[in-house]
């Protein structure tokens, strides 16, 4: 169970009329009709009949007022007289009371928004209701919901419309399908006894309506200008008159439908007589006149309402036009403003570009670029120029290149900075030169003291080999009788002085304390250390950087 607390409620009489109509139908069977006519002869029932007649009239008037109001609210009041006449005709043909058809018509009209379509759909609903076991109100409800996109009700009617068809078809196709299936159902029903009774019942209701209207008019006439007091004074007399009318009417109606010619003729004569006596024609004329007056009044009101609605529509359209005009003007102004701003921005850009020619900063940079600058400096100057000119794309590109260049340079500088200091390769050379000069001087001094030797003999020091050899060869085979000097000369001659050693010049080895080798070793060790520490000293051999 859901607990429901409505915050706001409204009264809705839709369906109440249908229920009332259903009760009337129940009590309107042939048996009850005959019983009602029979009992109408009693005074109490005459009074009850009078009340019922007035009620029928007021109900019908209420239904008509509801229809009129609906059409008026939707700006279609001019269609009211034709619509009401159409519904009354449909009621006569179908045997369904017009005051029960009008709410159903209203429902369909609100769903379709079209008087003609609503009338057709009401007719279709009657056919479907007569051809199936569904109540007319249920069918109308399903149709009106169908127009709102809810076809569940149509599916639950069990009239051969499956869910897939309802999901795919539109309402025009659905109503056409229903017409194809149920066309003629109402006519077939009216051929049956129950159908005829329904028509009679409905016609009886219509009769009661007419009587009720006559009663109301009679009361109004009786009251005249005297108000309720005048009516009270003549109430008793009027009651008898009404009773007489009703009694005769009941008697006449009870004999309707008989096939006996004598009775029919008698009935006709009696009816004509009563008509003459009671002035029925005059009454009918008055009723028609009253209806005509009412319709004229309604038409006049409808015309006024239509004029007022047209005026409101015109004002609303004018309002919409004003709004549209204002919106368009605002949009045009905004566009114009945007164009002007765009134009100003473009002009400013041109001015900035031209003004840049006289910008000292730019001039200096251009001048700097003309000179000999390194690649990195060129990049830096170009970046400065791009920043001054507010060229973001170029600035970003140059900044990236500069960072790359800086990184390369920074790494090389770092590697070089980590090299050990190179030793001075000529350290100690002055001492060595002094020592050399001393040796030369000593040698010169010794040379000056050396004795002069004969030509062809090896010089002392340079012929030690031959002297030593000659000493070992004295008195040996082949050198018998020769002296050491002779043997040495002989050997010198034979060997062409090859082993004399005098041809080789003395070589002075200068000790530079291993400085060059140490420099190379240190450089190598430094590079190895850098590599081991993960900081590579990369040297670009092509650029020299």
């Amino acid at each position, binding site marked *: *169970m*859901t*607990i*429901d*607390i*409505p*915050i*706001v*409620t*409204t*009264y*809705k*009489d*839709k*369906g*109440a009329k249908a229920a009332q109509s259903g009760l009337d139908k129940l009590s309107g069977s042939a048996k009850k009709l005959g019983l009602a006519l029979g009992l109408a002869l009693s005074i109490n029932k005459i009074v009850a009949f009078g009340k019922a007649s007035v009620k029928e009239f007021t109900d019908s008037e209420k239904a008509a007022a509801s229809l009129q109001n609906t059409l008026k*609210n939707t700006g279609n009041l001019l269609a009211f007289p034709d619509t009401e006449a159409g519904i009354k005709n449909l009621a006569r043909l179908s045997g369904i009371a017009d005051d029960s058809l009008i709410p159903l018509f209203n429902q369909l009209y*609100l769903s379709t928004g079209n008087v003609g379509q609503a009338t057709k759909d009401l007719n279709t609903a009657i056919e479907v209701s007569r051809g199936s076991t569904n109540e007319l109100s249920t069918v109308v409800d399903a149709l009106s919901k169908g127009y709102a996109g809810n076809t569940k009700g149509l599916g639950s009617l069990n009239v051969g419309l499956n869910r897939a068809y309802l999901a795919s078809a539109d309402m025009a196709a659905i109503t056409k399908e229903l017409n194809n299936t149920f066309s003629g159902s109402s006519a077939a029903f009216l051929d049956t006894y129950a159908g005829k009774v329904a028509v009679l019942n409905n016609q009886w209701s219509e009769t009661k309506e007419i009587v009720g209207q006559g009663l109301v008019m009679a009361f109004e006439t009786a009251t005249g200008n005297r108000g309720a007091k005048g009516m009270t004074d003549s109430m008793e007399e009027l009651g008898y008159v009404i009773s007489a009318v009703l009694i005769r009417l009941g008697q006449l109606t009870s004999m309707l439908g008989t096939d006996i010619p004598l009775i029919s003729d008698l009935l006709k004569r009696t009816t004509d007589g009563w008509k003459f006596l009671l002035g029925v024609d005059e009454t009918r004329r008055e009723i028609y006149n009253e209806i005509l007056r009412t319709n004229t009044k309604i038409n006049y009101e409808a015309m006024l309402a239509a004029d007022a609605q047209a005026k*409101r529509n015109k*004002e*609303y359209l004018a*309002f919409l036009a004003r709004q549209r005009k204002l919106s368009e003007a605002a949009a045009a102004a905004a566009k114009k403003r945007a164009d002007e701003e765009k134009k100003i921005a473009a002009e400013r850009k041109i001015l900035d570009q031209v003004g840049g020619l006289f910008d000292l900063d730019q001039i200096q940079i251009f001048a700097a670029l003309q000179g000999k600058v390194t690649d990195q400096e060129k990049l830096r100057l170009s970046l400065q120029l791009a920043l001054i000119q507010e060229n973001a794309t170029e600035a970003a590109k140059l900044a990236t290149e500069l960072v790359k260049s800086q990184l390369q340079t920074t790494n090389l500088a770092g590697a070089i900075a980590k090299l050990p200091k190179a030793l001075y390769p000529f350290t100690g050379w002055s001492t060595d030169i002094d020592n050399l000069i001393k040796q030369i001087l000593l040698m010169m001094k010794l040379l000056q003291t050396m004795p002069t030797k004969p030509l062809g003999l090896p010089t002392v020091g340079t012929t030690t080999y031959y002297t030593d050899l000659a000493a070992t060869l004295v008195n040996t085979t082949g050198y018998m009788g020769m002296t050491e000097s002779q043997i040495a000369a002989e050997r010198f001659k034979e060997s062409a002085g090859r082993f004399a050693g005098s041809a080789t010049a003395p070589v002075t080895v200068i000790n530079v304390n291993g400085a060059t080798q140490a420099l190379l070793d240190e450089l190598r060790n430094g590079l190895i250390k850098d590599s081991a520490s993960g900081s590579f000293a990369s040297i670009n051999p092509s650029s020299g950087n």
Partner: protein
Amino acid sequence: MPVEVKGLVETKAALKAYAPDLLKEMNKEIRIALKVVVKDAQSHVTPNVIGLYGWQDRGNVVKSRTKAKTPLAPNLRAFPKYNPLVIRKGLTFSLAASRRNSAGFVGFYRLLNKSAAGAIIETAGRKNFNGASDSQSNNPQAGAHFNRAIQGTYGGFKQVGNRREDKGRLLFAAYYRDQGKVIDAVFKAINKADSKFKSRLGLAA
């Protein structure tokens, strides 16, 4: 308790047809007003009912104790367990029109307590607080015990109308505490939309 208005259906229909933006705006304001009451009611849902520990929902499947399944009634529901999450979820509102009641009235802008356990909390003991006098139960005091336990946790009924049905412990109590502010807000939203619509049409507001 509810306030009857005339012409609301027509106003809504006109707004829907000619000024859907105003209808949307109106519904938005009404939703905000209704949500205040619903949130208040939700905040008063307790984790359990003291003294009714067996009623607490522990996630077990519960079978109906009073009736057996039959081919004609294969989906018999058991007595619902107390689950605060379910109760809170069931406390909500609706802007849709209700079905016409027997008196011919249709409700708009409704506060709803949809869950079964929530409805029990709301209404248990509203008719016979001390148990039915003609109870045929083996434990005729069970009903009174149940009602008193709920009363102890949630407090008494709050009456918001003249009828016996117009009182409750949860949603009715929240509506009672609201003291009509929600109705004011709803009417303010309706009048505002109506005035705007009329002024837009060039009619007097």
